């Protein structure tokens, strides 16, 4: 994984005919080899610590290509960042310049020495500053409370999982993720390095419109969280796409969603991957089964080492972040392993993900991971997706409650809801110990999804 000569992002574009799309615009990335979106002001950003506060994903992507190798540090503001944390982010990353676009929600709130507008149109540039340094990339974690942690990466680490792989020029990549989070940024970087087109979503775009657009641009590789995919499968517009590669990551890919995607796209490779903002991309599983083979652990694969300690998955990897900005707590332990906080259980020759360490529900002293109950509920033929949560109980401290979205309303009308709830409960009783069976099932029309594309969970 030696990168003797570090290339900047702009040096990857120009050789292949390449377009990036969102709902409103299309940018010919090829033109960035000798063009700019920053109105001739890129030079002002040399050696600056730049905050990308762009509102749209397309402008974010264009600015990233321009700034890598020029700025000292690039901090990417996620679309759902809390304005209350802006001051801390600016101070923590020593930010002295900000990039905004027309849709930046926060454009008025940053009082910084340099402020540059970015548009989705690429103008020919008379001269561009030559990339002269290795830019530090800073991503924000999606913690549920408090100031997000700022995680420092290099381009070499961010692209290590696919750098040097042969290009596939017929491909068009699409993503349900936002490229301002780790999972989406991976797709963005993969598209830039691979010289392929990329179809991005736009804020507030209905899933049906997005799927229709993905189909129109001929998407071949499509990526999202299991929650993204469950929602896509509920849309009639899913018929518009026929990808040959489908990938899930960011949440636990249970057997039900893997099987649903196999039957929706029989021609496609359905894979699921494990990655985190801190640990980077760890592995990909392509055998169509949930979890991962036990021999992935304790054996180095592409330089990535994993171990299981106190039930949680630990990763040491050249793709991992180097450190947190400004935090006292180290990112990795003394041996360089990052504790992911994702709990795994060995069943036979496979590790299965049990859930997040912080999400455990305590039922009178017995522990339940919401995700393991969801995996069972989701296997019921009439269930599309579910969220298992804890409810305070005067007797056992907590009880397990399942909020359930059905595949079709018709079924709900044809059968009494009570009967269906009983059926789902019976299904759970057959597969789970008594304390893990939901005390109650709520049939709900939809579930809240966070900007990360993951189910919105409220811990605590």
């Amino acid at each position: 994984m030696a990168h003797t000569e570090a290339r900047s992002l702009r040096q990857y574009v120009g050789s292949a005919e390449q377009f990036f799309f969102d709902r409103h615009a299309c940018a010919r990335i090829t033109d960035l080899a000798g063009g700019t979106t920053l109105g001739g002001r890129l030079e002002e950003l040399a050696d600056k610590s730049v905050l990308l506060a762009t509102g749209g994903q397309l402008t974010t992507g264009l600015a990233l290509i321009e700034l890598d190798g020029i700025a000292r540090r690039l901090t990417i503001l996620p679309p759902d960042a809390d304005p209350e944390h802006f001051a801390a982010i600016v101070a923590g990353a020593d930010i002295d310049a900000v990039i905004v676009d027309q849709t930046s929600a926060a454009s008025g709130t940053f009082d910084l020495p340099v402020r540059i507008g970015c548009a989705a149109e690429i103008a020919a540039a008379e001269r561009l500053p030559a990339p002269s340094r290795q830019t530090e990339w800073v991503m924000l974690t999606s913690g549920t409370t408090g100031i997000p942690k700022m995680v420092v990466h290099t381009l070499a680490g961010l692209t290590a999982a696919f750098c040097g792989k042969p290009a596939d020029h017929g491909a068009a990549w699409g993503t349900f993720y936002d490229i301002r989070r780790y999972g989406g940024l991976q797709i963005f970087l993969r598209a830039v390095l691979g010289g392929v087109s990329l179809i991005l979503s736009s804020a507030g775009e209905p899933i049906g419109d997005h799927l229709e657009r993905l189909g129109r641009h001929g998407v071949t590789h499509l990526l999202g969280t299991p929650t993204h995919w469950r929602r896509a499968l509920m849309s009639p517009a899913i018929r518009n796409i026929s990808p040959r590669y489908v990938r899930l990551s960011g949440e636990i890919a249970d057997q039900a969603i893997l099987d649903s995607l196999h039957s929706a796209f029989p021609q496609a490779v359905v894979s699921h991957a494990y990655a985190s903002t801190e640990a980077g991309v760890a592995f990909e599983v392509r055998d169509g089964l949930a979890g991962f083979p036990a021999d992935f652990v304790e054996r180095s694969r592409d330089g990535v080492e994993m171990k299981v300690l106190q039930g949680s998955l630990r990763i040491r990897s050249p793709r991992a972040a180097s450190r947190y900005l400004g935090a006292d707590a180290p990112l990795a332990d003394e041996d360089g392993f990052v504790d992911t906080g994702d709990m795994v259980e060995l069943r036979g020759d496979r590790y299965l993900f049990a859930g997040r360490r912080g999400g455990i529900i305590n039922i009178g002293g017995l522990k339940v991971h919401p995700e393991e109950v969801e995996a069972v509920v989701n296997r019921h033929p009439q269930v599309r997706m579910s969220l298992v949560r804890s409810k305070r109980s005067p007797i056992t401290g907590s009880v397990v409650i399942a909020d359930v979205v059905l595949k079709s309303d018709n079924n709900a009308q044809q059968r009494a809801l009570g009967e269906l709830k009983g059926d789902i409960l019976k299904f759970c009783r057959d597969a789970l110990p008594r304390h893990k069976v939901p005390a109650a099932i709520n049939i709900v029309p939809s579930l809240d999804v966070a900007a990360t594309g993951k189910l919105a969970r409220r811990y605590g």
Partner: protein
Amino acid sequence: MTIKLTIMDQMEEIAREHGKILAPLRDDLVLLDSGLDSLGFAVLVARLEDKLGIDPFTASEDALFPVTFGEFVKVYENGAH
């Protein structure tokens, strides 16, 4: 269905689900002797909230400790008013 009948119905169902034998539900039956354990009662309270729309235990500021089946039913009947 009255509140009392709903409670009886749910207790019988949970006992069946949990593989327990339910004692005859008389008003003076001590809950601890009913056959349901604490998880059974936790499930009962959650199910009753679903059926009746109230959870008198969580809604009340006072700690409620019904001892008999009759008292348990009273807590719900009072909570419904």
